[in-house]
């Protein structure tokens, strides 16, 4: 069981900030494939990966990052701090 978090327009498009997901996905990319297959709103949110960033256990990483032992995955657009 893993917490999946969404921020900014990803959160708005999917319609929730956080959910618990039971998954066997080995990588972030495989998790995205599972999410896309769920419902249209997920497919929409994940339609263009170049517009998305991912953090695994609160560290920025790539879409091919492994998920073994991971507690938290977050998806969001490029950051706009400062």
């Amino acid at each position, binding site marked *: 069981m893993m917490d999946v978090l969404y921020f900014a327009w990803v959160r708005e498009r999917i319609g929730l900030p956080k959910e618990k997901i039971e998954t066997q996905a080995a990588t972030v990319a495989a998790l995205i494939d599972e999410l896309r297959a769920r419902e249209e709103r997920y497919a929409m949110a994940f339609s263009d990966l170049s517009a998305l960033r991912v953090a695994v256990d609160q560290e920025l990483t790539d879409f091919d990052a492994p998920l073994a032992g991971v507690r938290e995955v977050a998806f969001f657009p490029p*950051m706009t701090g400062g």
Partner: protein
Amino acid sequence: MAEDAGLRVVVQEEPFDFGAEAERFAAERSDMGAVVTFTGVVRDVTGGLEGMEIEHYPGMTEKALAKIAAEAQARWSLGEVLVIHRYGKMTAGERIMMVATAAPHRKNAFEAAEFLMDYLKSRAPFWKKERAEGGQSWVAAKDEDEAALDRW
């Protein structure tokens, strides 16, 4: 709030007192000859901005900021580093964030402050949403902000 040796990171919703923070920061050490401060302000470019809302990722935000500040301390000879960043609702003219760096000489203090700002813009999990008469929109990240990291 995270405090390490010479490093203070604050993430908060409420406004901060830039003058008081700068004063306190500058008074901390007598062996630092240079203090650089930067503050970012909500900007109303078109004259129609009603407000801004900043979303962040609690937990990761503090970690990411502390990591960026620690990286600055590792690269330059620095005394203290201070980063304050707000989230939530604000209006034009309000201060969003500040950084302050102290170093024996000004070059290190200036460079480290620029490094902090460059990284903070695209590596700390904040997202700005602007509210204007026509509606609301997420501020898009700029290619030049990503490109700015290349020089470090």
